[in-house]
């Protein structure tokens, strides 16, 4: 999986380099409405707003951020699907929206083919985290406590993560009480307050882990966490599923190729530049930029959608 990601990143970097010239050539036919699928004030929202500001500064485009939240990004996707495919409406959500969430909500009538992927910006350093005072050093310790009869509360922030937590327990012979809350901040608050015993956190745990208050018990990714490389990955724990995903900019399907390239290169340039506010935030909160664009991104979105169906099937058994 790591090698696939590396190949994707390399292909994306080449694609971005080839498209760089187009960003300055393209002139939007009007102001660009940037739909943001995250609640105001969090790290994801701030990232989007920093990118909007930098695009205005670099290219002179008028970029108007607008919150369209709810339903795991499906409200944003619905608004985007019916928008004109000329580059004047783009949106930022997570890849999970176009994979698991669309697969889990067939009534919504949307698939990844209804959208044009522009670029990813960053991944998540998703770990399973608990308080240090619990006395656990890896998730195996939590499993042992659950096997001893303790009812452990596992905080998650989306239905997909709830399924993954369920399958993680199932693969290791334990049953968690899975509690879904709104966003990683709520999981952190729940763990700190003692309402939750452990939970998924997508980077928000880094300060607490560095200070020694929190422990990354496992990496929920296909690769080790950058901050705690010794923590086992989900594959080490007998799981065939993981929580890999990225923030992704998308546009409606049918976006002309030159517009797609111009927007993708403009955004990826901003997030890859460590001097920009967006680049600094991404480095600090999300472990650095992850840029996948063009056909590679479209293929990844389609693959996520197929993989999500497998996850839904496994969780329903």
């Amino acid at each position, binding site marked *: 999986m790591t090698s696939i990601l590396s190949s994707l990143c390399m292909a994306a970097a080449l694609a971005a380099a080839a498209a760089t010239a187009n960003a300055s050539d393209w002139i939007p036919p009007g102001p660009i409405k940037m739909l943001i699928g995250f*609640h*105001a*004030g*969090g790290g994801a*929202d*701030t990232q989007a*707003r920093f990118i909007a500001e930098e695009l205005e500064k670099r290219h002179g485009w008028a970029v108007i*951020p*607008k*919150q*369209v*939240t*709810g*339903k*795991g990004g*499906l*409200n944003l996707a*619905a608004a985007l699907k019916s928008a004109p495919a000329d580059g004047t409406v783009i949106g930022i959500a997570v890849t999970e929206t176009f994979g698991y*969430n669309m697969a*889990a*909500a067939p*009534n*919504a009538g949307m698939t990844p083919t209804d959208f044009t992927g522009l670029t990813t910006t960053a991944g998540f350093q998703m770990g399973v985290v608990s308080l240090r005072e619990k006395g656990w050093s890896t998730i195996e310790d939590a499993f042992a406590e659950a096997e001893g009869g303790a*009812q452990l*509360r596992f905080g998650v922030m989306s*239905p997909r993560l709830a399924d993954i937590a369920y399958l993680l327990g199932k693969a290791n012979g334990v049953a968690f*009480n*899975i*509690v*879904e*809350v*709104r966003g990683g*901040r709520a999981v952190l*608050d729940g763990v*700190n*307050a003692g*309402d*939750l015993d452990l939970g998924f956190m997508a980077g928000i745990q880094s*300060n*607490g882990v560095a*200070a*020694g*208050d929190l422990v990354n018990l496992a990496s929920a990714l296909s690769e080790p966490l950058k901050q705690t490389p010794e923590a086992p990955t989900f594959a080490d724990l007998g799981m065939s599923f993981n929580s890999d995903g990225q923030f992704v900019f998308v546009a409606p399907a049918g976006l002309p190729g030159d517009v797609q390239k111009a927007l993708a290169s403009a955004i990826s340039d901003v997030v890859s530049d460590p001097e920009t506010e967006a680049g600094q935030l991404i480095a600090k909160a999300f472990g650095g930029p992850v840029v996948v664009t063009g056909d590679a991104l479209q293929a990844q979105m389609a693959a996520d959608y197929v993989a999500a169906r497998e996850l839904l099937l496994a969780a329903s058994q």
Partner: protein
Amino acid sequence: MDVWSYIWAGMLAVFAGPEALAVFDIGISITLVMVIFGFLLGIVVGAIPGLGGPTAMAIALPILISVFGFAPDALLPVMGCLIGIMKGATIGGAVPAILFNTPGTPDSYMTTLDGYPMAQRGQAKKALRIAHFSSASGDTFSDVVLIVCAPFLALLVEAHLDLPEKTALLILSLSFVAAAVGGSVGKGLIATGLGLLAASVGTGEDFYPRLSLGAAALNRGFPIATSVLGVLIVGGVFHQMTQIAADRMRQSVPTPIPQETNGRLTWADRRALMPVIARSAVIGTVIGALPGIGSTLAASIGYTTAKARYAMRKGIPEFGQGAPQGVAATEAANSSVSGANMIPVLSLGIPGNTAAVFLILAAESIGGFAPGPSVFRFTTDSVNPELVIAFGLFTCMFVANLLNWTIGGIFMRSLGFLVRVPKQRLLPVVLVVTLTAVYVQDPRMEVIWFTLGFGVLGFGMRLVSMSPLPFVIAFILGGRLEDSARQAFAATGGDPWFLLTHPLAAAFVALSVLIVFIGVRSGRA
């Protein structure tokens, strides 16, 4: 960071934040400017009958967000301005009450009872000074109680309440609001139920847009601004317009009464008023800390308590005939609500009255600050930015308080002329500005229809004497109640009786039932 570092950081966030202007090379922060602006605006709107603090806060909020944006550094200037309006409006309301027997805000109605008779005797200036002194004293007391109590209450809740207890606490708050606001428990419960129903549209954990009836416009639910502004402001405007139409024949422009030139308030006068002010400040603070019952009830209880106490005293005019104690009791009580009503907001995330609703709305719109127990987490190894903002808000309250003591009195005494602003011209302006403000925040035509629809609902509620406040509080707390109940259910391993199997949660639920029962019984009596 230790506690003192947090307090210091909060003060710095207010005084050393982004600079708005410089006076004699001394930079004045934008937050400070906004608190001053909000406070003066609050006094002005308080002095105009028919406007009042909540209307001004409602109109100001979307405009402030448009100006300051959604970045976390917008929180203090925006909320500082709203706090300024909230505090200013309370003292502003006394001006027309004393000078023209017309309360500027509902909570200054009792001020007319003794303030206007004093004005008729030529003592309007003295009455205004008493109102100001009592108001500022009550406000200061209340702010001190807030700062001492809110963090402790939050820490207590965080340490001792689990998810089932937190769910039960929300149910208790809603029951209390339903039973305490307005004259009828039944109407309060209906308003609460309607608020919860409206909050359920298009929300929930499922990917399917619940209760949307297949309408795409309802998929995202009702934006919070449309329901709050619609029911509270637009509904109020519709209602007042119909009242103006009914009263047109009887309306007359009040004329000023000749006044004594010397209306000084001596130290002896102040000392004599202190007991009544202290008693009313305690009453207002206790009432302010309870969700749902606001400054109008505090003023009534403060006044009636003082009246009972001073009824037999010789040497002072009778209550209702121009007793300075009557003015002091009312103004100290209604002003001491403003600080205390922030206790449930900051420590529990539960809005206690209309002004607090707008502070929650500001926090939700801008993001980065979620009022509730988690705000008061005194992390030592890293900075809790929400706690810095909380202490920043405390600082804003004290700045507004200081303004109240210094320029508040002079400013309020110069605003008597505002009673002549014609309501029939003012209300359409309020309506247009509200609708524009809602549209600017969420530029979709649906939000206008939602706001007008909620306006009609608010109007209807007023027609049948149903307070709209339980509706609004239920709408705000509805999502949290659902989340909290779902989480408690999941955390207890799917126990459907989680509200009854946890002793404290069961006690809260029993108390909720008891409150409603007592309310129904006392209503019948």
